[in-house]
């Protein structure tokens, strides 16, 4: 049996590795997407004071520490049964919105976007941010850098540090912001809205204006009819910081919404012996293997699923884009994974609008940013929507607020099963009789999981935006017969 090993050196709780087995005929027999590492946060956080969780769990991921910081802070609030003052919640959400803008921007311009802007069959040397710069214009590179800077500036102003923020504590924050800072934040936010609109225009001109791309998006290879998940506010509109988790079935019918403390009724995790990562699925449906459809508990938690799981966006400009999205793609829900890139840009616009909304909120500079908890700490769940999926932190403590139990369901993990399925499907489509059909085909395999912006998929916001990927085709003895390389 032939074997293909894709060994991108990437990270989640560690790195990622794909094994593709070919059968006697040389067609894909099976694929295994392995996560080869475990750092053990669920064990070693036990015994630590719960207020340290926003600091400790930051270090799960340096790409989205803000998400862990928020989920941990909310779980710690819940442990203490304390409701932070409105200013604290708004400041946290403001930080988080700025983070979303940065994160989504980087993904679109450096990681996922080049596939579209340049086209999947463009020469590898052009399928990166430099290619994008050539095509869209020189100033775009500067704008992306500007956007990253602005995002980090807001994160540092509110969170104290650029990477691994430190200011969220049970009951609120350790600091507020001044009017001077608020003004600066507002200014940057207004810039971000314009930038988001510009990005949507780029997408519209280049992608939607090109029939071949639209066909690619709507094509079957990138389609999985799974359940969709996403955090929504009281009006079922997309929210990143707070609310209930909405789940819709493959037909788009809402299966229900759950509050953070109900998550164990909804989510369970399947274990396979060949990987350090578990596969979450909808408990009410059950684990039926790596298959899609209404009877399989596999779900996705991505920008696309968040749009599917909601009734709209809470800000006007983003709402208009939301409507255009579904009318262009033929109604709700959308299952074509490549549409995730478009959905991400709509979220980018929402995050920027929210950024300004919060920055102009009269309460935002109030010195009332912390409520001292008065109740006995017990147990709590915190959920935020991380860019890469619903993030759940669940803590139990003793009466001193020292952790006795920790459960974490991390953003990308939600999508472990659908990503595995996407990889398999893409591999099946492009590998025939032991031969990878073309170099562009290789990129299409990769595009399958790049759409999810998986954290282990090099979502590290690298400057040239290159995703290391190598497929080695081996014969039955394991000898290399062909090496294909991907420089996206």
């Amino acid at each position, binding site marked *: 049996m032939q074997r293909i090993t894709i060994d991108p050196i990437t990270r989640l709780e560690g790195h990622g590795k794909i094994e593709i087995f070919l059968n006697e005929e040389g067609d894909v027999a099976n694929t295994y997407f392995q996560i080869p590492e475990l750092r053990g946060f669920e064990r*070693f956080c036990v015994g630590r004071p719960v207020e340290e969780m926003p600091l400790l769990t930051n270090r799960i991921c340096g790409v989205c520490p803000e998400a862990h910081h928020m989920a941990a802070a909310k779980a710690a609030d819940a442990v203490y049964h304390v409701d932070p003052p409105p200013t604290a919640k708004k400041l946290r959400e403001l930080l988080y919105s700025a983070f979303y803008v940065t994160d989504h921007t980087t993904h679109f311009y450096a990681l996922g976007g080049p596939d579209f802007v340049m086209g999947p069959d463009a020469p590898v040397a052009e399928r990166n941010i430099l290619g994008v710069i050539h095509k869209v214009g020189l100033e775009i590179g500067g704008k992306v*850098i500007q956007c990253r800077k602005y995002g980090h500036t807001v994160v540092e102003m509110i969170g*104290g540090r650029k990477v*691994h923020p*430190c200011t969220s504590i049970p009951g609120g924050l350790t600091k507020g912001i001044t009017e001077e800072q608020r003004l600066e934040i507002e200014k940057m936010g207004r810039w971000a809205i314009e930038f988001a609109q510009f990005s949507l225009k780029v997408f519209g001109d280049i992608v939607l204006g090109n029939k071949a791309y639209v066909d690619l998006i709507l094509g079957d290879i990138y389609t999985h009819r799974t359940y969709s998940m996403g955090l929504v506010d009281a009006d079922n509109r997309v929210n990143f910081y707070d609310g209930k988790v909405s789940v819709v079935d493959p037909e788009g019918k809402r299966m229900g919404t759950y509050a953070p403390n109900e998550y*164990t009724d909804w989510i369970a995790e399947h274990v396979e012996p060949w990987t350090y990562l578990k596969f979450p699925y909808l408990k009410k449906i059950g684990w039926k293997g790596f298959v899609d459809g209404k009877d399989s508990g596999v779900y996705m938690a991505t920008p696309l699923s968040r749009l599917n799981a909601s009734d709209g966006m809470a800000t006007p400009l983003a709402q208009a884009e939301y409507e255009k999205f579904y009318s262009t793609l033929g109604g709700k829900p959308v299952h074509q994974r490549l549409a995730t890139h478009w959905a991400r840009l709509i979220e980018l616009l929402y995050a920027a609008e929210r950024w300004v909304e919060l920055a102009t909120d009269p309460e935002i500079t109030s010195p009332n940013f912390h409520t001292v908890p008065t109740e006995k700490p017990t147990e709590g769940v915190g959920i935020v929507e991380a860019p890469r999926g619903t993030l759940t932190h669940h803590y139990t403590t003793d009466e001193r607020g020292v952790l006795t139990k920790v*459960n974490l*369901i991390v953003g990308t993990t939600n999508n472990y099963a659908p990503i595995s399925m996407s990889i398999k499907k893409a591999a099946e489509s492009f590998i025939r009789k032991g031969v990878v059909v073309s170099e562009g085909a290789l990129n299409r395999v990769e595009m399958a999981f790049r759409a999810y912006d998986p954290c282990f998929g090099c979502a590290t916001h*690298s400057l040239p935006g290159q995703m290391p990927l190598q497929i080695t085709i081996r014969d039955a003895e394991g000898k290399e017969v062909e090496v294909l390389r991907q420089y996206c």
Partner: protein
Amino acid sequence: MSAKPKFAMYWAASCGGCEIAVLNIHEKILDVDANFDVVFWPVAMDAKYKDVAAMPDDSITLTLFNGGIRNDENEEIAHLLRRKSKILVAFGSCACEGCIPGLANFSPVDEIIDTAFHTVTTDKGSEVRLQTRYPAREGEIRLPTLYPTLRTLDQVAKVDYYMPGCPPESHQIAAVIDLVIAALNGKATLPPAGSVIGVGGSTVCDDCPRARNVKTIKAFKRIQDVRLDPTLCLLEQGIPCNGPATRQGCGALCPKAGAQCIGCYGPAEGVLDYGARLISSFASVIDSNTPDEIERILDGIPDPAGQFYRFSLPGSLLRAGKSARAK
């Protein structure tokens, strides 16, 4: 082939924040590009282990290595990069002293895996056991083996320089890169091997604007339980701030933001064991001479070992808790 010196950066068991910190030097990254040939940097480019293996020994001028050594693969790459690099920098707290993931050294590795696979949401009953060599229907697939404890880079390979911080602050990174470039051009000399670079010589307290009145305390407090004075030293307000033992370098970011220093820059110059230094610092602010009262005050620090070794357990004198060491 260009004649530029070669640059590499690698992540072992890391969170990726160190890479982000490097990318956050913004325009400076162009200096890296202008002055170095980037030959291996998994986050940014495609070159494989075997490409590195094929390079002549000592051919990479500068390698920034972040992440701790958690499994056999991490160690293998550490050895490989050591052989290929002239200057190997332990970059970030993980590589220098183990960092937060090093807290795993309080528990046996089996327990760590067991815990992860027995959470409330994990399927029960199936009792699937993780196998590092799994006989899949189609052939064997493998996983790296986790080591009993997490180790620092210098516990598996000789390290030339240490650059602490979780992650190191970008302006410090930029300064170090400037220095290396200047040194390569003969305009500066590198510090002696074994030095800690990109830091200050003193402690976080030295950069902290909060006023210290050499006050002693009758109680340790938890940060969520109090309204803090924004101008006074946190430790003197009873908040267990790690500033006194922590290496200067960040500019006291956390205390400036109202939060205690949690120690991410590791031990200050000349401190052999970070925890021991903090024990001394905390002991000296306690205002009591009677054992019972002292014990009562100490109850205010619910997790001393975690407090003192939050970032530095693998790099400490004891390196791990007893249960992680012995079966």
